[in-house]
Structure formats: structure tokens, C-alpha cells
């Protein structure tokens, strides 16, 4: 029997998950806590194999609790249980040492599968969490240029000064200078010459 511990400040959620998992013979509910501090205290007396941790807790964030629990009980697996399905939460929980991420609308089957997967030392992501992470929106390898940046870049390459570029594009020289600086920052180069070299190399010009 895999011992499962619940950390959630909503009694109804705790009761609901207990009810969902109660009928299964692969795992048992070892205990529950309504706050991070309470969880640490109880788990110290009553170890568990897998902890289901809510991201929003009254005294600390689930992310911080996850880190804390992993350092105190390195063998225990942690699953995030959240209503959020945003990338920022998912990646942070995983970085904090969680073995998986699932949403609160999970079914009994999914919960069971998640707990078993995590207990087996693998990573479990709910469908939606996986979808979020696999989408191709992580920053592209090569920086994309905005329209203005493209224009400014090609005019810089033509050897025009900030003032001349400003006249051409009907923007202020200060704005041109910002774009120039932005381009330097994006390409991670120090000067205009290096910028143009970079742009030519990666066919941005």
C-alpha cells in the first residue's frame, strides 16, 4: 500500500480526494494538513510515500513547501495538485522537485495513476499540463525581430546615423537609439559592427 499525504487548505478538497482514493486498494490516505507548517510537523511523525500538495497554501506557496519537503524527506515523492495549468507554475513545481503535476479536476483513475507513477520514481503530468509544456512557445533559438527592428537594422547596415534613420521612419532619434540598443541586447553583442556581423551570419538581414 502506498501511503498518500494530502496538503490543502480547503477541507472540501481534502474530503473529496479522500473519498476518491478511499475505495482503491493500491493506496491509503496516511494523513492530511491544511498548511505548510502543519504538513512538515505531521510528516515528521508519520511518514508518507507520496504527498499531494496544493500550490496555494495559507502560510507559504506550494512551490516553497515542495522544496522544503524534498530537503527534509528526500525519498518522499511530491505531486502538485492545482487549479492552475500555467507554464510558470508547472515548470516551477518541477524545478522545486515535484514528481508530477495534476489539476484539481482529475478523475479517480488519473489520481491513482499519478500516485503510482510518482511512487515508481517517474514523472507524471496531466494531459493539460503536458499540453502546456509541449507547446512550441518557449523562446526560439534565434531571436525574432520586430518590424521596427528589421527596418532599423537594415538602415544601420546601410550606414545611416540615428538621426537619418529617425527621419526615414518618422520616429524620434531617441526611439531609434532604443531599437539599436535593443538589438544589441537581443543579439548579446557589444557594438554595431558585431551586430551586423551577427545579423548577416544568421541571415537576419
Amino acid at each position, binding site marked *: 500500500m502506498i501511503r498518500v499525504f494530502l496538503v490543502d487548505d480547503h477541507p472540501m478538497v*481534502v474530503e473529496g480526494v479522500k*473519498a476518491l482514493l478511499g475505495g482503491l486498494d493500491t493506496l491509503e490516505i496516511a494523513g492530511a494538513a491544511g498548511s505548510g507548517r502543519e504538513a512538515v510537523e505531521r510528516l515528521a511523525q508519520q511518514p508518507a510515500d507520496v504527498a499531494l500538495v496544493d500550490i496555494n497554501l495559507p502560510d507559504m506557496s506550494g512551490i516553497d513547501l515542495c522544496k522544503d519537503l524534498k530537503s527534509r524527506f528526500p525519498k518522499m515523492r511530491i505531486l502538485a495538485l492545482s487549479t492552475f495549468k*500555467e507554464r510558470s507554475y508547472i515548470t516551477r513545481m518541477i524545478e522545486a522537485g515535484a514528481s508530477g503535476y495534476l489539476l484539481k479536476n482529475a478523475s479517480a483513475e488519473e489520481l491513482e495513476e499519478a500516485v503510482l507513477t510518482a511512487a515508481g520514481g517517474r514523472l507524471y503530468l496531466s494531459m493539460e499540463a503536458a499540453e502546456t509544456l509541449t507547446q512550441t512557445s518557449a523562446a526560439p533559438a534565434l531571436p525574432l525581430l520586430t518590424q*521596427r527592428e528589421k527596418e532599423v537594422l537594415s538602415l544601420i547596415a546601410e550606414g545611416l546615423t540615428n538621426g537619418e534613420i529617425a527621419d526615414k521612419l518618422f520616429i524620434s532619434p531617441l526611439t531609434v537609439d532604443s531599437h539599436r540598443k*535593443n538589438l544589441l541586447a537581443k543579439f548579446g553583442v557589444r557594438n554595431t559592427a558585431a551586430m551586423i556581423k551577427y545579423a548577416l551570419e544568421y541571415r537576419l538581414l
Partner: protein
Amino acid sequence: MRILLFCPLLLLSSTGAAQTAAQRDSLLRLAAAARTDTARVWALMETGKLYLASQPDTALHYLGSALELAQRIGFSRGAARCLINQSFAYNEAGRYRDAVRCGEAALPYCERLGMRKEYIAACNNLGNAWNATGNPWAAIQMYQKCLDAMPGVELPPHFPVTVRSNIAILYIDLGLFEKSLAYSAQSLAESRSIGDLHSEAYSLANIGTACLGLDRREEAYEAFRQAAELARKLEIGQLLANTLGNIADHFQHMGDLAGAVRLYDEALDIARRNGIPRSIMLSLHGQAALAMEQRQLGAARTLGMQALALADSMQDDHYRHSICLTLSDIALMEGDMPAFRRYRDEYLRLRSQHLQKSLVHALQELQTRYQTKEQEIHIRQLEQEREVQQLRLRLSWGGLAFASLLLGTAVIGYRGQRRRKLWAESQLKLEQQHVLQLEQEKQLATAQAMLHGQEEERARLARDLHDGLGGMLSGIKQSLAAQQPAGALAEAVRELDAAIGEMRHIARNLMPEALLRFGLRDALQDYCDHLRRSTGLGIRFQAFGMEQRLPRQAEVVLFRVAQELLNNTVRHAGASQALVQLLRDGDRVSLTVEDDGQGFDPAKLGSQPGIGWLNIQSRVAYLHGVLDLRTAPGQGTSAHIEIPLAA
């Protein structure tokens, strides 16, 4: 325009050019031979200081090398002193922005290292720079910091007097005569106790001007009389000419026209002998007004036109407008209607120009204030601002009389019936302007408070929804699901799921948790993910230099702007691809949102359907940012926003 007493604290006593060169050479030899880097910093700095007064550019060269070295070797005290001297040199060279930059850079060093004397010098340089750039409030604040830091610090005895005099003059400019009087009274007492006659004379003149502003004529006369006596003894031509002019005005006011004529003649004579065009102009104008009162119209016209020619050559619009008024009055008395109309039109044009300038200035100042101060102290400031506003208005409509006082001499004594009517009219106009200003002031404050309050409220509401209602609904759903429902109940559970999803959606729109918790970059990334999922729009997101969090206000406002821009793209652009870029470089942050949609005519911005362009613009303005919008029908839309981060 005003009598300004700049006091360089760190200025060395002036030395002859040959001597300077000799000192420079020996100092530079010292620098080259110095065994330690700190000694080299000192030597370079001292070399720079030799040129502070005579050749600020040369001074800046040496001070720059000294600063560079000091910073490279982590010699903070040296760096602070270099910065202060640079600030002084920039003031001398008329490069006030640079002076401010160096002065401000020096302050934290001085504070951290407890360098009180240097702190005072830095504040004084900053005050002088702000003063020269027409920022009276900032200047006063800096001078006040000087004064506050003075107790227990050994300083040249005349220094506090000078600082107080500077504040007194600034308050006169702002029309806050009571305040000015308080400072000049103190500087007078101090200058007397240290026996500094120069400062005493200037303090008396300031007292006289402030008293005139308060319409305490007898006191003003007494102060001017004493000031004139000292100025005569010390042979300070400009001060003497100006105070005599003021006394002449007093005589004219008291009906002693002969006395007034005599004094104006003397003032003019002194001004001419000392070659002070402004004082000549003021005296001529005074004589013109006097001649007019005595109905010597031909003489009055000649004098007035001489004064006007001088004002023209000095490009002093402020003065030209009151001289034009005098000339139009003279023309009217002479029955020369074309001349009357000509001068009158010119007067009105200059006057409205002047009004507009002061209005713009007042608004600019208001904005700067909002930029630099916290919400909590805004109310107090607004009250202060209103006070200034009122006084400034009083100053403007009284421009005719007061403006001349500010310049050191009162000029016009003509008090005709017609003038009173004109005054009443202009007063009415200004009253309306005043109402408008207060309105704008109020709007700014309200907008700020609203944006702030709105976001706070949204954050609270979102959290309540998510944690409270959301948690409860999830719990109910799980309890029900545990019963393994079938049929209608199973349907209800599915609906409950949808309801939870909808609630989450609302909460996220109110205030994304990720924004408060992880910052703008993550929140915007999440938002793009969400839009991509729910709309199928190909959104690419990239961020550069966003490792550090931004100030919360900037994060929230930029997020809202991005949200609004992306909503436009999703709802109205019919785009298939969009790019969202967030970039930070030092203290600038830029946000770009562009799409390949249908675009629109930017001239029809206001009438774009359901689009919060106004909303976007006001939020960008709230952060003192700039919006660069590029779009045209069929060309897609690209919005680039850049905001400065307050240092």
C-alpha cells in the same frame, strides 16, 4: 533675470594663469610619481580643481580621469569628491543636465560614507543646476537639504547666508512671498552677525521685493532704502540701480513725482555707467510710465520705445509684454489708434504666450512630481501644488506689476479706470484657466489613484475567487465524483467542471496569480500560452534581459497593456501570427506586440471598434512611456511601447 548668488563651496581661491600652470605641472608630476593610486586620484582632482572657475572643460578632463581611476580602484571617497567637482564644473560650463547627473551620483556615496560637508556641496550644486534649468521646486528642495545638513559642519561663514538667499529668491519667483520673507529675514540676521555687507545688501533687497509682493509698501521702502545705502557704499551697480528703481516706484505711488523722477534719473545713470542693459531698460520703462502719468506723452513714447528696443535686443518677452502695454496706453492717450492696436495686439500675444508657458510648466512639474513621489504623499503635494498654482496665477495676472518687482524694480504706476477693467477681464479669464488647471490636476490624481486602487482590488478579488470559491467548488466536485455518479448527476458534475473552468478564467483575467508571484515575463508567457490554446493564433513570445522583476506598478500596467493589445489582435485583426516581445536594457523596458492581421488606419484610432486604445494610451502615459504604433489597412499592426524605470 534675477539676482542669483551662486556659491561654490569647493572653489579654490582664484590664482593667476601662470601660477595655475605651474601648480598644474607640479601636481601632474606628483600624479605621475604617486606611489599609490589614491594619491594619484587626489593629484588629478586637485589639478582639475585649479581650472574649475577659469576653464571648466579642462577641469572636466582632469576630474574625469580622476573619477575613472577612483572607480576602478574602488576609492569611494575620491569618487564622491570627483563627482561633486564635476557637478560644479558642469554648472560653470552651463551643462546643467550633466551637473544634475553627477550631483545625484555623488549623493549616495556621501550618505553612505558620512561625508557631510561633501553632501552639502553636492546638494548645493544640484540646487544651482535645478535653479538654472528653471526647476524652482527641485532647487528649493536641494537647498533645503543643504540647510538641514549644516548643523555641526564647519563651513565658510557666508555659505548658509547664500543658500538661504537663493531659496528666498526662488520663493519670490514662485510668488510665495511670506516664505521668501522668512528666509531672507534669517539670511539678513546671519549676514549681520558675520559682518558680511554684500549678503546684507542682497538680503535687504530680497526683503524689499517680498514685502512689495505682500503689498507691505512701507516695509519694502525701508528695506530698499537700507539696501541702496549699502549698495552705494559697496559700489554694487546693478543692485543700486534696481533698488533705486524700486524706491522711485514707491515715491511715484506716494504721489511724490519729483522724487520719483530724480531717483529714476539716478538709477538710469548708474545702470548706464555700469553697462547693465536690463537695469537701463527697467529705468527707461519706469520713466516712460512716470512721463505718461504727467501727460508728457511725447517723452513717454520716446522713453517707452527705447525700453522696447532694449527688451527686443535681449529677447526678453516677459518684459516686452509690459512695455507694449505701456506703449499702447500712451498711444491711446495720444489718439494714435493704429499704434494703439499694434502694441495692444503684441501685448496680448506675448501675454497669452507667457500664460501658456506657465501652464505647460505647471503641468510638467505636476507630472514630474507624480513620477517621483509615492501615492501616500500625493495628497499633501496636491495641496501644495494648488497653493503654488494659485500664487502663480496671481503672479501672472498681476504680471504687469509683479513681474517688474521680480526683476528688481517696479515700473508702472499708472492706475487708470480702464486698466482696472482690463485687469478684471484678464482676471476672469485666468479664473477660468485656474478652474481648468485644478480640473486637470484632479484628473491626474484620480487616474493615478483609480489605476492603483483598481489593480489592488482586482488582485484581492482574483485571490478570493480562486482560493475561496474555487477551492470550494473543486471540493464539491470531488465529493460528488467520489460517489461515482450516473445519469443526470454525472451531467451536473460535468457542468460543475465547466463552471470551475469559467471561474478560473475570470480570476485570471482579473489578475493573473503568476503576475504577482513570478513577474511579468512568466505571466505574459502564460497568457500567450492561454491565447494560443484557446484561439489557435500562432503567438510567439520572447523576452530579453528580464531576469530581474520590475517594479510592481510597471509589471501590472505593462501586463494590462499587453493584454489589451493581444485582445485587439485576437478579436479584430483576423491575424494568424503574432509576436510578443519583452525587452529590458538597463532602465528601459520595451514591449512589442505585432500581428499580420488586417491593420487599420491609425488616423481612425478613436473609432476603432471596441478597442481600448485610449486605455492603452493612458496606461502608457501613466508610466511616462512612449507608444509607437505602426499600422495601415492590410499591413498588420505593430505596437511598440517603451517605458523608463525610475532610478
